[in-house]
């Protein structure tokens, strides 16, 4: 259980930012809504929330946040991407003319991989390192079509990879912020804790 208090940025171009913020508050953390690159300097970790990846991408581009987030990742500070956040963190995308990609994590992403909204679903997911199943909420969700050798696969559904970790990057194709289950956030906070311990 991680109970140190960190400042966790939530990229707030668009999407489910409040849901992440209230989960962070529930765990005694300090959420910071990030709308410009200067605000990134004072946070220990960053969450890229669910939303529309094309919208978030365009707003990041317009407001110099792409390089800023890439630099943030190069400092080895932890980043947690959920759904659209997973799409943005990936290196490449399947069948996309114009990929929206920060090119940080060695994964190839299939956007809307499970179909349209009518195919959005809930399922109980086996996750590596978690004793009990995780209540996963998939909304027009992507999946990971392939991973590089440094990527640790954490969960798959229907033979499609839906959660993974690579060094300081954690991604989930589903929405932990829409449930009361904090285990993914705890995992992310432990990554933030490890990184912060190294600095001290």
């Amino acid at each position: 259980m991680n109970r140190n208090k960190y400042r966790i940025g939530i990229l707030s171009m668009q999407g489910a930012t409040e849901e992440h913020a209230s989960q962070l508050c529930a765990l005694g953390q300090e959420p910071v809504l990030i709308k410009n690159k200067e605000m990134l300097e004072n946070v220990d970790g960053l969450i890229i929330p669910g939303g529309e990846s094309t919208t978030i991408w365009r707003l990041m581009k317009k407001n110099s946040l792409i390089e800023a987030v890439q630099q943030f990742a190069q400092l080895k500070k932890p980043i947690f991407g959920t759904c659209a956040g997973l799409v943005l963190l990936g290196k490449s995308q399947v069948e996309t003319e114009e990929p929206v990609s920060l090119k940080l994590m060695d994964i190839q992403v299939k956007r809307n991989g499970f179909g349209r909204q009518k195919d959005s679903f809930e399922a109980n997911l086996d996750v590596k390192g978690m004793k009990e199943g995780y209540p996963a909420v998939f909304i027009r969700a992507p999946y990971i079509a392939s991973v590089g050798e440094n990527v640790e696969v954490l969960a798959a559904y229907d033979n499609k990879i839906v959660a993974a970790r690579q060094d300081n990057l954690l991604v989930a194709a589903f929405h932990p912020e829409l449930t009361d289950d904090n285990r993914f956030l705890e995992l992310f906070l432990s990554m933030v804790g490890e990184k912060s311990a190294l600095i001290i």
Partner: protein
Amino acid sequence: MTDRVTGTERVKRGMAQMQKGGVIMDVVNKEQAKIAEEAGAVAVMALEKVPSDIRAAGGVARMADVSIVEEVMEAVSIPVMAKVRIGHIVEARILESLGVDYIDESEVLTPADDLFHLDKKPFTVPFVCGCRDLGEAARRIGEGASMLRTKGEPGTGNIVEAVRHLREVQSQVRRIVHMNEDELMTEAKNLGAPFEILMQIKEAGRLPVVNFAAGGVATPADAALMMELGADGVFVGSGIFKSKNPEKFARSIVEATTYYQDYQKIGELSKDLGEAMKGIDMKTLRPEDRMQDRSF
């Protein structure tokens, strides 16, 4: 690992949560849909006519031709919404079978039922509905709406009704939150709202579903105003494609919605925009032309 469950309350409401802070734009063909997507819209609403043209055309306004909806669905990767007439079960089932991502049971179209809204719970596809006050909002949630939008007055380019409706809902939510439980049943009676929904609002401190603003947004400053007043996002109907420069209006409205408290930026976004859509003063609108009064 157990089997998947689709169409749950959580995935229907969650879909709207992913749209928060965004702009949903009305489009009538694939070209407009592309422009909206390029500009950063979080979704598009596929229509046969934008509300101001529906107003001008008169007659009965119905669900869009299926070919328009399909054309838009094929053109963009963002979610596609479409409107059905209030109470039109079959139009809704048709759109659901097409795989539309969200259905707007909308007063912009001519109601098919003058007594009952759709029972939205049995559908897999989620619904958004309009509201002018908390009673209407809570009744729609009670029927199974997964998202709300304050109505405003569609197709007028006049923000005044949108402001009135959003302020009304917000103020009534605040009242509920501060009420004692023993006052809630009488309040439910007065508002014409389901008691259970008011209890949920009291417990959560907010509406249980996302609430966007709609009906009259014509400029970046209008969009920012609705966010300032507490909207979760905005719908822009005629405001984009009835302006002189749709691309620029679309981009600027998207950015102003995200940076709604960065007034310098909104100032920049408002430079050289060109002419906004021509608006309508509410005083010149005949009572029978008011779309917002079409629901129950």
